[in-house]
C-alpha cells in the first residue's frame, strides 16, 4: 500500500567509498562533507559534499591514522587530527599546499576530544580540561590563541546553525555548559543540569552519553533533545522517552517537552522540517513528533504522543552495476535501520558499509492519509514547508460533500486555519503600517487563546480556499450535497468573522449562488436580513437578476443599493424599469438630485407605461423643474426631449387645451411645489 510510510530517503544519495581495512570514513556535520581517507591519505582523500563545490579529492602524506578531518567553512583550510594533543592544518588556497602546520593544545596533560570550525578562520579545540579558541592565519601558517575556558569535559555536542556548543561535565555527565560562539569569542550561557532517569548510588559514573543528546534548531529555537532510557518500573511499562530543553532567548535552557516513545532499545533522532523524528532500530520504524501540536501540559512541560502511528521508512533500492552484464544496472534494496547506520543532524543518515549518505524526507501526502485526527493533521501541515498543496488536497477531501465530514470537525479545522491566517495578516499589517498591534483592525478577539506558536509555514487564505477547495466542491453540490456545501461555506464565513477577517465578495457570491441553486431563498433572505453578506453593487445586481425566481430579491436589492449610499442612479434605473415612475420621482426629490436628473429617461419610461396620466405628471414635473432651474419650462437641446415634447403636444394640446380627465390640476401641480 502506498501509504505504508511517511518518510523516505532522498532519491540521489551521496555515494562514497565504503569503510574497509584501508579506508576510513569521516563526516563533518557543519559542512555536510563525507571524507573517505584511503591509507591515511596517501592513496587519496575523496570529499563528497551536497554540491559540486563542496566535493573534491586530493592526496596527502600518511602521518598516522586520522582521528578527525574537517574543512574550514570557506574550504580554504583543512584541519586533521591525528594525535590526542595536536591538530594539523593544510592550506587549500590554490590547490593543495603540501606544507602542514600544527597546533597543540595548551594544557600539558590535556587530551583533545575534538575540534570545531566555528567561523571561516576560527577553530575551537575541545579537550578534557577545557576549550581553546584559535584564529587560523593560513598566510602565515600559524594559529593565534583567542580565548579559552577551563572546565572538565566528558563530551560535547555542536550545532553549526545556532553556533551553540554544549559541554558535558560532572561525574554523571549531565551538567551541561552551553557556549554561544560569535566572531572572535564565545558567550558562556547559563549552566543547566539534564534530569537523569535514575542516579546510580556509588560509584558515580557517566550516565548521560553523547549519543543520547542531540542539538538542533526546531521552529527557530535551539533545542537540546535528550533520549532517556527509563528503567522498567512497577507503575509503568518500560519505555524510553525524549526530553527536550529549549534554549530560551539563547540564554537559559528550559525543560519544555516530553515525547513518549513507549519502546526500548536503540534510537536515533533526526529533525526534518521542524518535526522531530525518532528512529527505532528494533522495530525498524520511525515516529514523528511535532512539538508545536497541543498536548497535555503541567504548566511547564508539554507531553506529546507521536503525531501518528510509527511506520518504517519507504523501502529504498540502489541501482548498482550488475555483476553479470556490465552495461546493465541491477536494483539492490538497501537494508533499512541497519546497524551500520549513523544518524547526523539535522536530517542525515549514513550507511558507512554501503557508502551511502541520504537525507530523510517527509511524504506529507501519505502522512495526510495516515493521520486520522483532521485537526491535528491541519495543525501539523500548516507548519510544513511543502504543506500547502497537501493541505489543500486534504481540505478538498475533507469537505467533499460525499464524505460528509462532521461539521464540528470542519468548524475546528477552519478555526485553526484562520487563526494562522489572522496572525499572518496581523504581521503583514504591522510590517506595512509600522503601527502598534493594538490599533490593527485584526485585533485579537478577547476570547481567543494567546498562542505562542511560531509563524506558520503555510497560510491558506480566502482565495486559496475559494479556488482550490470551495469551487471544486460546489460543483459537486447536487441535491442533499448542496446543503452540506452551504453549511461549510457558512461555517467558513463564520470562522473568518470570529477571527475579524473581512470576507471577500467572491465567497459571498459562491454562497449565494449555491443557495439559489438549492432554492433556499428564505434562508438567503435571512442571511441578507442580518447583513451577514456585505453590501456591494455586484451583489445587488445579482439579487436583481434573481427576481424572477424569488420575488423578494428585488426588495433586498433595493435595500442594499440604498445602504450603499452611492447607488442612487441604479435605484432610479430599477424603479423606472419596474414602471414605478412616480416612486422614482419621489426618490430623486427626496435625495435632492432633481436638477441633475435626466428628463429624457423619465419621460421615456413614462411614455412606455402607456398611462397618459403618468406621462402628463412627469412632463409637468420636469417643466416646473426647468422653470426653477432656468426660468422657463422648455427643455434644452442637450436633453434630447423634443420627441417627448411632440408627444405631449399631440396628446394634450392639439385637441384643445385638455388635461387628463382624472388628474386634478392640484395633484400634479402640488407635486413639484412640495419639493421646494
Amino acid at each position, binding site marked *: 500500500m502506498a501509504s505504508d510510510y511517511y518518510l523516505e530517503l532522498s532519491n540521489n544519495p551521496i555515494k562514497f567509498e565504503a569503510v574497509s581495512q584501508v579506508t576510513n570514513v569521516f563526516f563533518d556535520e557543519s559542512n555536510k562533507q563525507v571524507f573517505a581517507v584511503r591509507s591515511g591519505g596517501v592513496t587519496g582523500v575523496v570529499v563528497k559534499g551536497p554540491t559540486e563545490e563542496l566535493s573534491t579529492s586530493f592526496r596527502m602524506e600518511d602521518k598516522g591514522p586520522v582521528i578527525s578531518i574537517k574543512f574550514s567553512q570557506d574550504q580554504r583550510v583543512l584541519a586533521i587530527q591525528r594525535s590526542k594533543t595536536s591538530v594539523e592544518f593544510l592550506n587549500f588556497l590554490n590547490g593543495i599546499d603540501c606544507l602542514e602546520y600544527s597546533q597543540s593544545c595548551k594544557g600539558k596533560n590535556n587530551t583533545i576530544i575534538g575540534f570545531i570550525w566555528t567561523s571561516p578562520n576560527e577553530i575551537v579545540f575541545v579537550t578534557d580540561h577545557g576549550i581553546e579558541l584559535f584564529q587560523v592565519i593560513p598566510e602565515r601558517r600559524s594559529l593565534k590563541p583567542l580565548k579559552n575556558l577551563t572546565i572538565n569535559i566528558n563530551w560535547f555536542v555542536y550545532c553549526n546553525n545556532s553556533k551553540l556548543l554544549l559541554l558535558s561535565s560532572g561525574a554523571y555527565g549531565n551538567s551541561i555548559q552551553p557556549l554561544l560562539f560569535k566572531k572572535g569569542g564565545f558567550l558562556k550561557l547559563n549552566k543547566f543540569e539534564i534530569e537523569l532517569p535514575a542516579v546510580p548510588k556509588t560509584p558515580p559514573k557517566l550516565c548521560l552519553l553523547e549519543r543520547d543528546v542531540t542539538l538542533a534548531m526546531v521552529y527557530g529555537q535551539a533545542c537540546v533533545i535528550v533520549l532517556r532510557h527509563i528503567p522498567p518500573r512497577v507503575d509503568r511499562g518500560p519505555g524510553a522517552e525524549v526530553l527536550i530543553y529549549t534554549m530560551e532567548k539563547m540564554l537559559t535552557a528550559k525543560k519544555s517537552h516530553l515525547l513518549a516513545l513507549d519502546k526500548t532499545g536503540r534510537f536515533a533522532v533526526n529533525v526534518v522540517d521542524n518535526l522531530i523524528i525518532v528512529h527505532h532500530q528494533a522495530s525498524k520504524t520511525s515516529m514523528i513528533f511535532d512539538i508545536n501540536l497541543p498536548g497535555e501540559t503541567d504548566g511547564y512541560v508539554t507531553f506529546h504522543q507521536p503525531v501518528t502511528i510509527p511506520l518504517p521508512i519507504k523501502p529504498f533500492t540502489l541501482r548498482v552495476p550488475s555483476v553479470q552484464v556490465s552495461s546493465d544496472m541491477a536494483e539492490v534494496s538497501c537494508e533499512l535501520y541497519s546497524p551500520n547506520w549513523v544518524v547526523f543532524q539535522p536530517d542525515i543518515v549514513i550507511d558507512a558499509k554501503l557508502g551511502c549518505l541520504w537525507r530523510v524526507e517527509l511524504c506529507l501526502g501519505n502522512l495526510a492519509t495516515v493521520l486520522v485526527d483532521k485537526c491535528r493533521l491541519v495543525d501539523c501541515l500548516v507548519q510544513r514547508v511543502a504543506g500547502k498543496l497537501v493541505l489543500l488536497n486534504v481540505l478538498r477531501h475533507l469537505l467533499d460533500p460525499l464524505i460528509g465530514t462532521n461539521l464540528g470537525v470542519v468548524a475546528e479545522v477552519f478555526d485553526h486555519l484562520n487563526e494562522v491566517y489572522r496572525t499572518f495578516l496581523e504581521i503583514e499589517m504591522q510590517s506595512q503600517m509600522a503601527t502598534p498591534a493594538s490599533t490593527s483592525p485584526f485585533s485579537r478577539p478577547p476570547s481567543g487563546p494567546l498562542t505562542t506558536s511560531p509563524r506558520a509555514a503555510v497560510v491558506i487564505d480566502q482565495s486559496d480556499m475559494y479556488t482550490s477547495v470551495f469551487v471544486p466542491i460546489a460543483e459537486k453540490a447536487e441535491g442533499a450535497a448542496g446543503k452540506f456545501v452551504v453549511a461549510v461555506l457558512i461555517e467558513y464565513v463564520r470562522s473568518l468573522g470570529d477571527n475579524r477577517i473581512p470576507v471577500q465578495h467572491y465567497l459571498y457570491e459562491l454562497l449565494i449562488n449555491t443557495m439559489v441553486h438549492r432554492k433556499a431563498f428564505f434562508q438567503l433572505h435571512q442571511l441578507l436580513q442580518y447583513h451577514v453578506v456585505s453590501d456591494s453593487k455586484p451583489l445587488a445586481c445579482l439579487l436583481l437578476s434573481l427576481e424572477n425566481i424569488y420575488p423578494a430579491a428585488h426588495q433586498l436589492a433595493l*435595500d442594499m443599493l440604498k445602504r450603499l449610499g452611492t447607488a442612487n442612479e441604479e435605484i432610479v434605473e430599477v424603479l423606472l424599469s419596474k414602471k414605478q415612475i412616480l416612486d422614482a420621482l419621489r426618490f430623486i426629490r427626496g435625495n435632492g438630485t432633481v436638477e441633475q436628473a435626466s428628463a429624457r429617461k423619465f419621460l421615456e419610461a413614462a411614455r412606455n407605461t402607456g398611462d397618459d396620466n403618468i406621462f402628463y405628471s412627469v412632463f409637468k414635473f420636469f417643466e416646473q423643474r426647468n422653470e426653477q432651474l432656468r426660468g422657463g419650462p422648455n427643455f434644452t437641446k442637450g436633453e434630447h426631449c423634443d420627441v417627448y415634447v411632440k408627444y405631449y403636444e399631440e396628446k394634450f394640446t392639439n385637441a384643445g387645451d385638455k388635461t387628463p380627465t382624472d388628474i386634478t390640476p392640484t395633484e400634479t401641480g402640488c407635486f413639484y411645489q412640495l419639493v421646494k
Partner: protein
Amino acid sequence: MGSTSDVSLLNLYYFNSAYGPREGEEEKKVLYYYPSQTDVETKIKNVGLTEAIIKFTDTFNPSKPCEALHTQKTRQIIHQAEPGFWAVMTLLVPTINKTKDGQDYTEYQNDDVNDSVYLAVLKQCHLMFQLFNGNLTCLADNPTQIKNMLDQFYSRFIPTLKLQHSDLLDIFAGMQFLPLDANTFLHVQCLVNKVEASFPTVHSSAILFNDQLVWSGIDPCDMQLIFHYLVTNLLPNFLETEIEPSRPRVVGRYVTGPATSAVKDELSCSSIPRLFLSSGQNVYLVVYKSMNATSCLLLDSYSTPTPEFFRRLDAFLGSRLAQISEELAASCSKSSIQSPGSSSLGSSLSPDSPKFIYYNTLNRATKSTIHLDGRKCGLVSVSQELIKLLGDVHSDKERLKACSEVILKTKNDSWVAGKFANLREFYVVLNTKNANLIEISDEVKRMCDLHLKSIFFTD
C-alpha cells in the same frame, strides 16, 4: 357611560353542502358547530342562511365570494376554507349601554369590528387546523372523520382565540425577528447546520429566542403558523410548567417530546405532534428549550423518533443551545445600548411617545412597539380605539397605490399615519397635541429615518 361588552364569539361552524344535497339531509352538511350544545334546528337554520347568502351574492360577483355579513348586532365572517368546505364565524358586535332621557338603551359599535381582521383570524384558524390535520379535501370521503377532527381541534383551539385582542397584527400574521449582529447570527446558523448534519432525520429547523425568531429553515408559510403556535400557545404553557419549584435543574428540556427524565418511556415518544406542511409533507414537531433559546425541529415522519434519538439530541443540543442563548442575550443587551433608537424604545412605555408597527410582506417580518409582547394578551401601549383605527388604515391601503401615505387625526388629538412602499407597511401612532400636518409628516419621516434607515422606503 354605562356597561360595555367586548366583541365575542357567537358561533363558529363548518359546512359542506355536498354532504346533504337532498331535503331532509340538511343535518349532514354541518361538519362542526360551536357551541356544540346548540340544537340541531338552529344549526340547520344558520347553515342554511349562510348558504343562501353565498348563493345570492354569487350572482353579483362570482369571482369573489361573500366574506362578511353585517347586521346590527352581529357580524358574520364567511370563508371558503377549501373547495366546498366553508368556515363561518359569527361575532357579537361590542356594545355600550347608555342612558338618554332616563331611558337605557344599547349602542352597537359596528364600526369597531373590522372585517379584514376577523377574516384573517378565521383564515388563520383553518390554516392552523390544516397544520395539525392536513387538508379536508383529502378526507372528503369520510365526513365522520372530518367531524371528529374538527371537533377535536376546535374544542381546544377556540378557548385560545382572544377575539377581543385581535387587530392589525392578525392580518399580517407576521413573525418577530430578533435584531442581531451578523457574527452571532452566524453562530446560530452554524449550530443549526450541525444539528441538521448530525441528525439526518431533521427535515428543517428554526431557532427562537424568547418570542422572537432568530433563524428559520422552514418554509415561510409553515413557519408563520408554527411561529404563532409556539409563541401564543406552546411556549407560554410550557413556561408555566417550568416555574414549578419541583422541576429538576437540567440544561435543556423537550417542550414537545419526552420529559427529559422519562426519555426511556416509549409511550411518551409517540405523543409528539405531527404537522402537515404546505408542501404536503408530514413531519413531527420536536421543540427543545434551553434557557431562553428554543430549537424547533421538524423530523421526517417515515420513522417514529426513538428514545435513543431523543437522548442523543438532548446530549447534543442541551449545552450548545444554552451557550447560544447566552450569546444571544449578550448580543441583545449590547445592541440595545448601541442602537440610536434605544432612547425612544426605552421610553416606549410612556403613552405619549411615538409608536410604530412595521410589516414586510415579503419575509413576513413584523415589529411593533405598540404591542408589548407577541402573545396576544392585550398588553398594548395605546388605546384600543387607535389600534382599531390602524386596522382601518390597512383596509384603506388596499385602495391605494403601491407607494402611498395616509395620515389621520383622531378626535382626541392623536395622529395615525400609514406609509406603504416597496411592499412594506409602516404605521405610526403619535400623541402630539396641537400639531399640524407638516409637523406630523416630519415626525413620521424622522421615525422612518430612525427605524428603517437600512432599507429602501421611498418618501
